[in-house]
Each structure stands twice: as C-alpha cells, then as structure tokens.
C-alpha cells in the first residue's frame, strides 16, 4: 500500500503531513556502511558512541541557531560567543569546586557540574537577551547588516572574554567520576560520552516536547512556517522570538559547557571554531528545521569519528564533504523549511 492509495481512499480528510523518512535512514546507513570498514565490532561501537556523543553536543549548540533563523530570518554569526561564554563560566564554576570535582562519587560530581551548567545557561541567556536588544533588534530584515553586526558582536564578545578571563587557554578537566571508560564486551566507551548522549537526549526530548506538545511550541512552529500569518492571528511574534533567542543562547551556553568538557580545555577562539561546524550542521539540516539539524549534527559527529579513525587526513574535511554531498542531493538541506 503506497501513499497514493491512501489519498484515494479518504479524499475528504485533510491530507496528512507525510513524514519524510528517507533522511532518517541516513544515520543507520552511515553506521552500517562503516561497520565492515572498521575491521572489529568493538572499535565500531566505540566510534559510534563517540560520534553520537559529539553529534548530540553539536545539536544542543546548533538547535538554538536554527530556530532563531527559522523564526525571524536572523542568522546570528555571534552564536559562537555564547558557546565560549558557557565554557569559560564552567571553567570558573568547576575551578572553584575542586573538592567536589575531585571526588570519586558520580553523584557529587554531578552536583558540581549541574550548577556549572545552570550558571552557564542563565548567564548565556541573559547576555543573549542583551545581545538581541542591542545588536540585532535594529537590523531586522537587513541581511547584509545582520551578518556584519553579528560578526561585530562576535569580535567584541571574544575580546571581552579575553578581558575577563585572559587570552590564554584554560584547562577544564573532567570531574573524576566522568573520566575513564566502561567496557561493553570488548568495546571501550568513554563515560563522559555516555553522559553527553544522555544529556543530549534529555535536551532533545525536552525540545520536542515543548515544540510538539505545548502552545508555545505550536506558535513557534507556526511562526517558522509563516510569520505574518501568526502575527495576523494576534500573537506578538517579537516576544516569542526574544524567548527563543534567549533559550537558544542558553542552550549554546549549555553546549559550551559540554563542548569544553569534551575538549578538556577552553580558549577564547573556540566560539569562532565551533561556529563553522554549526553553520555546516544547520545548512545540512535545512536552515530552520530542528529535525534536520538533529540528523545533520549526528551525521557530522559520526562521520568525523569514522573518518578520524580510517583516514585521519580526510577527517579534517569530512564536514565540508558531507555538506557538499547533502546539498547535491537536496539543495535546500535535509528538511527544507517551506517558505524558503
């Protein structure tokens, strides 16, 4: 039974939104394709978990950016600053709680990381609010200016981070219980990566719940589809947008904490470096789509880890390669947003 039969059978019903499943198959396809190349199953498991963890962190960072772009057509080149900010705040908070992070107990470690994440999210969200007010608000609808202004915001933000924390690289060691790996059969899986996958899934779940099951989420999705129509129905999309921007910045702060722990050090330039990565992800995803962004992030993470193991030289360009391939297949990204 195919789709055309269904429409013939029930012509009066509203046409159901067809779920585009093809991109979903990309992930298992990529993973299975890599399996015979690896040689051993345990290596494959290790790399797959590592790739998923990296993908999850990238997703957390990029999701805010893609929503902001989808909702208001604003591309924030300064997004990277919030990532760096989150990471630096984590370094400060965790640095002041060395007793707790040195403890072997997972619970106490989590109790140390949790406030670090909360502080990072709160501050990044707050700075995001100011950023929207001061930097972005005057240039709605003017793309050229937006790119330049947010780039300027990025420069200023990076320099301010250097003013506060200094220009040097700060080590951000993992809490004691997060270090080392678990053995699943023969496969060694780093504990922190598992934690990253869990946190990533929680964020993903929360985001899908908010977007799919709440009124606010409904408005956001409607706004991404057609902003003017939502405004006509009497909702203040501007306020909604500010909320999304703050939430996106807070998520970038959270992602920054996780990215910093993943790299185990933080530098003021990290924002600019991650920026390139998340732009690739949201282009792959389709500029504005959360689902596409998720698949794109996981694809980038998996491919980076697989190629890093198989052909390290290619790994440096795997992202670009992936982007080109995806754009050749679907020029608008995996899940193009309707009006663009």
């Amino acid at each position: 039974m195919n789709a055309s039969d269904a429409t013939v059978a029930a012509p009066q019903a509203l046409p159901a939104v067809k779920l585009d499943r093809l991109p979903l198959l990309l992930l298992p396809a990529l993973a299975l394709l890599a399996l015979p190349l690896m040689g051993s199953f345990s290596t494959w498991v290790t790399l797959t978990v590592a790739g998923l963890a990296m993908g999850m962190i990238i997703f957390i960072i990029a999701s805010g950016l893609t929503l902001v772009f989808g909702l208001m057509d604003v591309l924030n080149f300064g997004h990277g600053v919030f990532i760096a900010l989150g990471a630096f705040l984590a370094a400060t908070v965790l640095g002041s709680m060395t007793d707790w992070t040195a403890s072997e107990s997972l619970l106490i470690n989590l109790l140390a990381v949790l406030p670090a994440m909360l502080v990072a999210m709160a501050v990044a969200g707050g700075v995001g609010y100011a950023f929207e007010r001061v930097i972005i608000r005057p240039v709605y609808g003017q793309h050229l200016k937006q790119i330049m202004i947010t780039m300027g915001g990025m420069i200023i933000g990076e320099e301010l981070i250097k003013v506060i924390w200094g220009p040097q690289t700060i080590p951000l060691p993992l809490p004691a219980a997060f270090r080392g790996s678990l053995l699943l059969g023969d496969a060694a899986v780093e504990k922190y990566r598992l934690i990253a996958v869990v946190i990533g899934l929680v964020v993903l779940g929360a985001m899908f719940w908010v977007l799919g099951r709440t009124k606010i989420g409904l408005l956001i999705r409607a706004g991404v589809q057609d902003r003017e129509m939502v405004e006509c129905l009497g909702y203040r999309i501007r306020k909604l947008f500010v909320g999304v921007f703050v939430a996106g910045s807070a998520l970038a702060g959270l992602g920054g904490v996780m990215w910093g722990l993943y790299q185990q050090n933080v530098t003021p330039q990290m924002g600019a470096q991650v920026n390139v990565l998340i732009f690739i992800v949201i282009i792959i995803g389709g500029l504005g789509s959360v689902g596409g962004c998720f698949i794109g992030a996981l694809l980038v993470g998996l491919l980076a880890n697989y190629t890093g193991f198989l052909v390290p030289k290619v790994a440096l360009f795997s992202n670009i390669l992936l982007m080109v391939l995806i754009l050749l297949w679907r020029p608008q990204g995996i899940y193009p947003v309707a009006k663009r």
Partner: protein
Amino acid sequence: MALISRALSGDLPRNRILTALLIAIVAGLALAPFVFPGAKALNVAAKICIFIVLVASFDLLLGYTGIVSFAHTMFFGIGAYGVAIALTRLGPSWAAVGTGIAAALALSFGLSLVIGLFSLRVKAIFYAMITLAVASAFQTFASQLSEITGGEDGLNFKVPELLSPGFSLVEQPFLGVSVDGKLISYYLLFAVTVVLFLVMLRIVNSPFGRVLQAIRENDFRAEALGYRTVVYRTCSNVLSAGFATLAGALLALWLRYNGPDTSLSFDIMIDILLMVVIGGMGTLYGAVIGASLFVIAQNYLQDLMKLASDAAAGIPLLPNLVHPDRWLLWLGILFVLSVYHFPAGIVGRLRGKK
C-alpha cells in the same frame, strides 16, 4: 585636471576634506622611505599598500555588488602561496614570480567560479556561510600539505636579486636613504598598488560596475531589466578574487615569507571587513582610508593604549580593557557603531556633508 579626472575614471573624491586626506595618504606612501625613517615605518607603509588592494577588491564584492564573502583571505593566501611556492621550488628569478602569480590566478579564478556558480544563486546568508566553511577547510588544507606549503611553519624564500635587501643599485645613499633592494621592493609595491587601484576604479565606474550597483540595490529589478544577475555576480566574484590574489603575491614578495597566519587566517578576514566598513562601503576611496587608518591603528594604537593601561594600573578591570592586546575590542565597537550610525563609513560621511 582633465588628466587626473581621466585617471580616476571620473570618480573624483567630491569633498575637500576627503581630497586632502587622500592626497596626504598618497603623498605619505610615495615618500614614506624618505619622510618616515626606520624599518617599522616602511613595513607599515608597505602593509597599507597591500591592504589597500585587498580591501578595495573586497569592496568590489561587498560594497558594490552586495555579496558577503568570508573566503576573501583564501584568495589572498592563494596569491601569497603561489609566489612563495614558485620561488622556493624554482629559485629566485622573475620567471618564477611570473609562474607563481599565473598559477595562483588560475587557481583563484577556477575556485571563485565554482563557488560562485554553486552558491551565488541563493541568498546572501547562504553564500556567507558556505564561504566561511570553504575558507576554513582551505586553511586546514594548506597547513596539512606541509611538504609543499611548509605547514604551520610556512615558507622562507629568496626573492629575485633586484628586490633582495642585500642588493644596492648605487653606492651613495640618495637623500640619506640607501638605494637597496628593500627600497626598490617598496616602490615596486607602491607602483603596482596605484595601477591596480586605478584599474579597479575603472571597473566600478564602467557600465559593468553600474550593473553591479544595480544588483546591490535591487537584484530583482536588475534581473527584470534584462541583466543576468548570476553572471554579473559571478564575474564580480571572480574579479575580486583575482585582485585579492595579486595582493597576496605582493605580500609574499614583500615579506619574503608566507605562512598560514600571515595570509590565510580568519583574523585577517575580520580585519578586512572592519576596514571596508569603517572606511566606507561602496566607494573604493573607503578602502584607502579604511586600510590606512586600520593598519596605523594596529601598529601605533597599541603604543597609545599601553600608556593608558599603565596609567590605569591599580583600578580593577580597566587596565585589562585598555591593554594593548585588546585594541581589536575598540575597533570592534567602532565597527558596530559605524554599521548603525554611518553605514556609508568615513568616506560616505564626508561626501554627505559636502
């Protein structure tokens, strides 16, 4: 007067202060070795010349056509690497310089054409992101091919004898300055800069340049008038890449060294963006003003800030804010303010006042 107007393609500065500024800059650059003694001053003057070409070529894209590209340093780097690799491999001869420049131009034209055709059909934002990604990949690529490009260490090489510092044309110093390879290099650089700048001025004031400006103002309307905007945009992209490549070649010849940080780094991209916007988009004179101001600030503002930083010692946070390494913070703020309050930059501001 008619001759000057002709040389400037009829696009005169149209403002007294601006004219005075430009004459001061050109005179300063022309007489730099004699008026400002010392190696640092000459370096600053040479850097201003190189950046005038580079920034003007970026303005061709950003200011005249309304395309934001973050891959401009890639072409700059290709030019620098072209000369550097050719001189390392083929030895210091003019033929090697020519080969390097030709190969670099070919590569730049090819790359910019591909990128342009691939992504100029779509929105400005998309193009900005694609070029950002491509440029960062190219930078990694250049530092990975260490057998050819020297990797992170870069390449040190010898330039043709006429330009090498050891060479001296006449025994006696002329007006107190010894006529050596450094001086000859500087004047070669200066002459090439003037020629390239006038060529670009010719391009933007030609009918072709008018179409580019029409596309910037309203691409839909330009298309409706019968101009194939994709073709024009791609042409503008290729031309600007070519000029950036030549600027890169000049940089390599001047420094006798090239590495990823001197020509490819993203910091330079940001510098160019700041120079174009602060100087004034959509007018090539903006490139002259912006580049001169920025390079001078880069080299001398830091000394000034050091004084301020020392004076502010003891007050919390303030010394850090005016620390000499934080000069980019202040230029960043100036950049944001200029995008808001005088989007046409210094030149636009001056011209507007009449």
